[in-house]
């Protein structure tokens, strides 16, 4: 895959990459850094992508890794700057769902984002999160119960 094709296909994933990064990193600046790193790493490793039809999932996996890595760094640097970029909440169409989803533990939130939001199959979701399929399924179920309860309250 050449540079132009890489860029074209990565651009086509913008919305998905944003949502995945958003689900992991609450800070706008962190997401900005993470996606930059993820794309550069992906390009650097493009030679390792055997099946180009799997590009979107492969890139999503790299973005997840990069965001988790950024999240770990943030946890280890607790005195890091407070976010100056509070998201405009009125730009979120379903605020109740947003808050309920973001209120979930990350390990429950990510299967929901990948499966329900991004449409990956259960098997693909498990693979992307490096989880046994049974675990991914269990977490999805648990997440749905919590979301349902949360949304009912509101």
């Amino acid at each position, binding site marked *: 895959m050449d540079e132009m094709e890489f860029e074209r296909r990565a651009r086509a994933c913008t919305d998905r990459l944003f949502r995945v990064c958003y689900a992991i990193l609450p800070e706008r600046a962190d997401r900005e850094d993470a996606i930059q790193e993820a794309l550069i790493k992906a390009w650097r490793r493009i030679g390792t992508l055997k099946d180009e039809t799997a590009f979107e999932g492969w890139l999503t996996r790299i973005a997840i890794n990069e965001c988790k890595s950024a999240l770990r760094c943030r946890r280890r640097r607790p005195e890091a700057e*407070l976010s100056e970029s509070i998201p405009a909440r009125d730009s979120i169409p379903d605020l109740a769902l*947003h808050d309920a989803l973001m209120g979930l533990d990350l390990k429950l939130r990510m299967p929901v984002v990948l499966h*329900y939001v991004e449409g990956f199959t259960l098997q693909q979701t498990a693979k992307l999160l490096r989880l046994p399929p049974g675990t991914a399924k269990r977490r999805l179920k648990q997440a749905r119960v919590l979301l349902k309860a949360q949304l009912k309250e509101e």
Partner: protein
Amino acid sequence: MKQNWKDAFPPVDAGFKDGMERAFDALGKEKEKMKRKVSLGFVLAAVLALLSATALAAGLGGVFGSVNWFGEFAGDEAFELPLPTPAPSAQANELFDLTQQILDSRGEKELVLVSDGVSGTYAPSTKALAGLQELETLLAGNAALPVAKIPEGYRFASGSLFYGCRPEGQFELTASQALPSGLSVSRYRIPSGMDFATGYSLTLVGSDPGDSITVDIGLSEHTDAQEYWMGVGPEQQAAALEVDGADNAVAVEGAGGSSLSLRRTLGTPVACREFLPGAQSDLVTYEEVQLHLHASLASVQTLAGMLEEGK
């Protein structure tokens, strides 16, 4: 539950698009870097051969950016792509200062979360150290964390011990307060007997002004040796070292000081409940210990001496 799941997210923000654009701009440069990486790799092989004879302090000329745990050139975008920092508003500055004050005033072994309702900053459970003797006492029986020695000519200046929570425990909320500024402050503690040391940091000072050594040692989840990057300044050299007892070791020397980083896999992984701001605590497994030492003036040999005869 019928939902349009995508409605849970805001539209892609400008910052995210900027991050993507910067990456795309860098792709052309990456081609050049890949070529450089190949040639540096060749030099590295020669350097490693040299290191086996001299043990320490060999270098890679021209590496500028970062190296991985193998001492290999890993990228220089950190220097080529400075991220523009938007000027914070006066209100943001005030909130930032207030947040720092609250975090700094937290009690011993108290974990504090300061939130503005959307995002938050927290300071972990720590204990200020009075000296190395206290550290040795607190780490007695903790085989995972080696105690660094103070090199001759240096004295202890400050230090903190970091605490994690055992998987059987849960962070206990002890106080919650909403401030007029809009910030909310939540204070937590790890139940007695459920805390354990996960790392520590030390600052040592020498007799000359500006002569200092910092030590950061802590348990870590496993990181891919290719993926972990350490910064190398424009007038510094980096090299991988072979150090008994370490899986990987990298030294960085030159203008700006010297650094020595090592990691080793733990005999037995350590499970820990990690505090997650705004969510349930998360279970993590620490599989290795990482040791990062940095000296403003002292050599890598001096740093290496601090770990000799360690646990």
